[in-house]
């Protein structure tokens, strides 16, 4: 009660004055606003009353005739440029935006920012190669980070133009989910990492084990299949983030860590005592990691296909970032075609014939990209394995460039 009286007194003192002043101001302001509104509406009406103006055009600040002319010119120019060539919606959007949007994940060596906040990594270099193919500029690419659960819906909803985040190419993803896959850029397989003290020699001995596995990946499905096939039981510990998954394993929350073997190689080097752990020999799955794009843009798919193939083909030719210039004088007709010395390929594709030359010169061939980011000399320390050219016993095989 006492408080109420106090407050009413205060209110009366401070707001009474304001109340006496304000209503008049409100009326004044309302009146002024009405006047300006009226003026604006008459101004807006007069120019658009000319019959040539389409009524749907929003009113603009300047004289609308000039804008119309500019718009018409722009449309005409656009039509002239695209011509009769059937361009898909994705490549159109990329060109309109002036940059490719590439969905990436986060995994050391494959995609991680350096100290300057620049994305670096194996998949990142393929994104830069694509930017060269479309814009002749490796910087015209925006990397968009995406977690394993949201990467496919994000690609579907147009958040990015291509997903280069180590997605496994599968039947369902290609058919039911509606994604095209480019050539496989990395052949991976799911492995099992266990502590040596568990005394396990092969995966079938793991009956009743707790298994750390990452959500939203094919890994989660594979490990379930693996244990079911071998009629043994397991307890899954499902964690979203790669790093947390590895922490959980290191702290002993689970007996087995299962991920793609490429991840496990990094994890093992990061554990307090790497020699106490062993990577079991089985690969319980095939994980062909390939770039994924939405259905409906064949031209974009072909660009993706042939950019990846070009890095593979360059390694087969023995063309590297360092020696690519010396190959420009090569007499080999296939190399001359590849590097654009003979412009027939570029003419066939209506592309700059020097594109593959620029890609090799800027990011290098497949082998160089591999060695630079994930090869044996890096912290990741992966062997080439399946990811060697077919001429050296690997699976990389590019169709002929002719």
């Amino acid at each position: 009660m006492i408080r109420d009286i106090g407050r009413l007194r205060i209110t009366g003192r401070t707001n009474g004055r304001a109340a006496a002043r304000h209503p008049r101001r409100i009326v004044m302001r309302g009146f002024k606003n009405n006047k300006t509104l009226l003026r604006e509406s008459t101004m807006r009406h007069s120019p658009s009353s000319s019959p040539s103006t389409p009524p749907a055009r929003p009113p603009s600040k300047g004289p609308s005739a000039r804008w119309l002319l500019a718009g018409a010119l722009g449309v005409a120019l656009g039509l002239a440029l695209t011509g009769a060539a059937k361009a898909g919606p994705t490549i159109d959007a990329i060109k309109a935006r002036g940059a490719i949007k590439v969905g990436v994940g986060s995994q050391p060596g494959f995609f991680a920012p350096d100290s300057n906040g620049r994305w670096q990594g194996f998949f990142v270099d393929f994104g830069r190669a694509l930017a060269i193919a479309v814009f002749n500029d490796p910087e015209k690419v925006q990397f968009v980070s995406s977690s394993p659960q949201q990467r496919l819906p994000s690609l579907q909803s147009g958040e990015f133009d291509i997903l280069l985040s180590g997605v496994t190419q599968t039947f369902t993803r290609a058919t039911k989910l509606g994604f095209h896959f480019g050539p496989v850029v990395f052949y991976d397989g799911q492995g099992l990492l266990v502590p040596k003290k568990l005394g396990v020699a092969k995966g079938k001995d793991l009956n009743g084990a707790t298994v750390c596995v990452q959500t939203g990946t094919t890994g989660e499905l594979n490990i379930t299949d693996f244990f079911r096939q071998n009629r043994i039981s397991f307890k899954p510990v499902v964690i979203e983030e790669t790093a947390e998954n590895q922490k959980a394993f290191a702290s002993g929350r689970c007996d087995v860590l299962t991920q793609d073997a490429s991840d496990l190689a990094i994890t093992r080097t990061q554990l307090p005592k790497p020699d106490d752990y062993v990577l079991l020999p089985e690969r319980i799955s095939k994980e062909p990691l390939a770039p994924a794009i939405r259905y409906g843009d064949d031209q974009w798919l072909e660009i993706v296909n042939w950019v990846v193939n070009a890095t593979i083909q360059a390694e087969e030719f023995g063309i590297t970032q360092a020696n690519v210039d010396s190959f420009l004088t090569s007499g080999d007709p296939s190399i001359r075609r590849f590097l654009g010395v003979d412009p027939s390929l570029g003419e066939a594709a209506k592309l700059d014939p020097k594109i593959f030359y620029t890609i090799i010169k800027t990011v290098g061939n497949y082998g160089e990209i591999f060695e630079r980011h994930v090869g044996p000399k890096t912290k990741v320390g992966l062997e080439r394995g399946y990811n060697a050219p077919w001429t050296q016993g690997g699976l990389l095989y590019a169709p002929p460039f002719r």
Partner: protein
Amino acid sequence: MTDHATDHRLGGLAPPRSTPEPRWRALRDGLFGSKPNAVLTLLCLGLLAWAVPPLLRWTLLDAVWSGPADRCAEAAGACWAFVGEKLRYILFGFYDVDRQWRPAAALAILAGMTVLSALPALWRRTTPLRWVAGWSAGLAVVVLLLTGGPDGPAVPTERWSGLPVNLLLATVGMIGAFPLAVLLALARRSPLGGVRLLAVTFIEVMRGVPLIAVLYVATLLLPLMLPSGSAIDKLLRAQIAIILFVSAYLAEIIRAGLQAIPPGQHEAARALGLGYWAAMRLVILPQALRTVIPAIVNLAVGLFQDTTLVIVIGLFDVLNTARNAAKDPAWLGFYDEAFALAAVIYLIFCVLASRYSLWLEARLRRGG
């Protein structure tokens, strides 16, 4: 506040003393005054003895303060050299290094505007109109700074990252939610049934859904519903989602404030000849809002921490940049240091906010 505290103590066990007791005795009585107290004290001391030395060794004694990553790998302690190397990335993320002053300036402006808005001394001199004008101007400058304009190439919002993102999402979230929340709160108390139903539906739906779900809808479902090509920027979508989400909570806080105003105030306002809106603006809302300022500050602290949820939609706030800093193959695996830094950053902001809230509470109770 002081009155209350004394009252409480007087009503409790301790009889009033004429002479102030020595400090050490008060301490002894407090820590070892009774058997349970002594046990608790010993237990706590034991815990400290167990936890503090290793922590000190890790953070200070065995820590590596500078040098390359290899030196850290050999050391047993923390690698603060990692923080030195990555501090720029953790704070400003993917923003161009040579134009880094832009996010730094944006951060300073946002922080400055927040501090200014929090000063009660300025409240009396500002009208709502000036408030809106000030924040609009400030935010326009911040956005201009971050987008890279007016000179130089544009910086897409994908590259806005680190601490400015947290602060931008939180401050704009609060400021943007405020008018909406006031309207919702008024609508919920409105005598018009339709208006009330709309407000109740909105508030209950927003409060019934976790923020992550709202963010997912804004980033994944919304673009699927819109015609392709008409994409709204991801950061903007997240911002709008946060504003809508916060407005529901804020509306309930403001409604609580409105309910605390005695009907006499309404009647007095009406007696002065004020209409509904004038009464609300001049009499009811100023008092109602003042009552709930601590709750609003509390919500703001929570929101600041919640902004880190934008991780799930691929935006890089300061926690996410910290985590990613440890994924650089050159500095692989220093997650502990990265998270320690992020924790310190959050702690600084939240402690400041909570001290401010206490100070404000005391001041308002004094009738400031």
